[in-house]
């Protein structure tokens, strides 16, 4: 599993074709986030092996691969969520706007505010209303101005395509919403803290096709403003929503390319087999 291709260096930015792994030669503006030599271990088990990946700004990058390939593990490290997991150890660098998220002097709390996250299962806070859910990240961080909060609630819910369905009933408990609405509420909640990057961990896997379609529309719309990284089991979904796709297998990044190329003309045999559905 060492046949990792780094073709993406060339394919994203043809002006800076670089054979080496170095990041210095490239204009960082193009990339919102860069993961460099990331290895993640749970105790002795190595879940993610030495992955280097660059996420272009204002685009959707999909991570695909069979179950247990480490895509969710990798996604979570982009927000330092492994701090919460006992026994998890992350090596390497995750740069966001040229700041290493894993730098010891950095409090992850500041950077998590730049990075929003949407989880696999909708997880709105059960004791809070729709309004309180959206404002949770702001209110609990000390923003109390009702006017600002109201504005952000409307804006975030509109971006998540939920506003029209809930605008009359913002005081309703969040768990009274349907699963798809709850997930869009979680997207709104993530957007309310005004992040620049949005991480999505199989955001539609627990939803029916109609709710899935709505989430995908939301993603397509959000990409105009945000850098989105999405983990998905559903290859059609990757094709529909993403600009770039990384294929992971057993902790390795096998291939990373523009979505179109990766699905129509994969360079790696394993990738070809996977996207053709020969294993999974």
């Amino acid at each position: 599993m060492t046949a990792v291709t780094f073709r993406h260096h060339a394919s994203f930015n043809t002006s800076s074709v670089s054979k080496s792994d170095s990041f210095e030669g490239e204009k960082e503006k193009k990339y919102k986030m860069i993961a460099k030599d990331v290895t993640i271990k749970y105790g002795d088990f190595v879940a993610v092996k030495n992955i280097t990946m660059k996420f272009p700004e204002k685009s959707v990058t999909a991570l695909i691969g069979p179950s247990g390939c480490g895509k969710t593990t990798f996604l979570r490290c982009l927000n330092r969520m492994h701090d919460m997991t006992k026994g998890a150890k992350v090596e390497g660098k995750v740069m966001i706007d040229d700041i290493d998220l894993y730098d010891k002097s950095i409090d992850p709390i500041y950077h998590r505010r730049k990075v929003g996250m949407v989880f696999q299962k909708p997880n709105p806070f059960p004791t809070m209303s729709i309004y309180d859910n959206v404002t949770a990240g702001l209110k609990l961080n000390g923003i109390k101005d009702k006017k600002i909060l109201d504005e952000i609630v409307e804006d975030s819910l509109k971006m998540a395509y939920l506003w029209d369905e809930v605008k009359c009933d913002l005081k309703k408990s969040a768990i009274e919403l349907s699963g798809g609405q709850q997930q869009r509420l979680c997207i709104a909640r993530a957007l309310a803290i005004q992040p620049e990057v949005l991480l999505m961990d199989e955001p539609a896997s627990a939803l029916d096709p109609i709710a899935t379609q709505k989430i995908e529309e939301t993603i397509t719309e959000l990409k105009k403003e945000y850098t989105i990284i999405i983990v998905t089991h559903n290859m059609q979904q990757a094709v529909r929503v993403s600009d770039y796709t990384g294929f992971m297998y057993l902790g390795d990044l096998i291939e990373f390319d523009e979505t179109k190329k990766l699905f129509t003309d994969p360079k790696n045999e394993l990738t070809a087999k996977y996207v053709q559905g020969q294993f999974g």
Partner: protein
Amino acid sequence: MITSQQKRQEYRTLFKQNVEKRLIVDKVVRIIIFSCVIIAIIPLGSILIEVFKNGSAAISYEFLTAVPGSIGSGEGGIGPAIQGTLIVIGLSSVIGVPIGVMSGVFLSEYGENKLARTIRFFNDVFMEFPSIVLGIFAFLMIVLILGHFSVWAGAFALSLIMFPIVARTTEESLKMVPITYREAGTALGLKKWVITFRIVISAAKSGMITGILLSVSRIGGETAPLIMTILGSSQFFRGMDVPMDALPLRIWRLSLLPYDSAQLQGWGAALVLIIIILGINLGVRYYFARKKGNNIFGRLIKQGTGGKK
């Protein structure tokens, strides 16, 4: 040589027999369960009936408000005891609940280390301590040093009984809150204490309240530690540094007297104590049920622990 079709037919008959057998087992198990419930309810029910039957005759306005009359006269009431019980329950809760809740939060949210495991172990041991031992401890620590019985000593002893219970139930209810809510909070850039106190605790509130009410019920009926600390009195509350009365103490004293009238008052006092504990439980539950009527998670916890009271 039998064909596979015949074999399958045989299996079908076999499974059918099996089903009948299982249905019988199901019935037997159900009967056993119901009989056990009834066996458990009989003593509980008969105690309640007995207390109501004997106690209700003693209840009157004078009985509830007056100070005790002369011994054996059948006059006077349990006013000071009711007042004392309410004071001592309130004071112990003020001391015991915050300490218990904080310990529970520590065990649940920061509890993956040796220190927490040690604390958890001793907490469990502490929970099973005979209350008289805690009474003697409070006696030695406060009564002997200050040189007099006091309300403080009683509240201290009862809060020692209270906080292991509160800590344990708080820990258990917090652990029931799915990790995904904590993750969502973390991803929003919230600090750990904000996540714990504003999100996790609010989701676990109902379970925690059940634990607190359990501990209140427990201390409401404690007699032994109170003998060692607040001693008992036949006057209304006079200050924190002097003896005070409480219902369990009054029940104990009245029931030891050889007069029918005193024993009748004892029954009456027992009935009042049961009603007070029941009232606190129902009152608190009603208040929070109304406040958090739409909270499915809380309802689930309540369903899970509601029958334990």
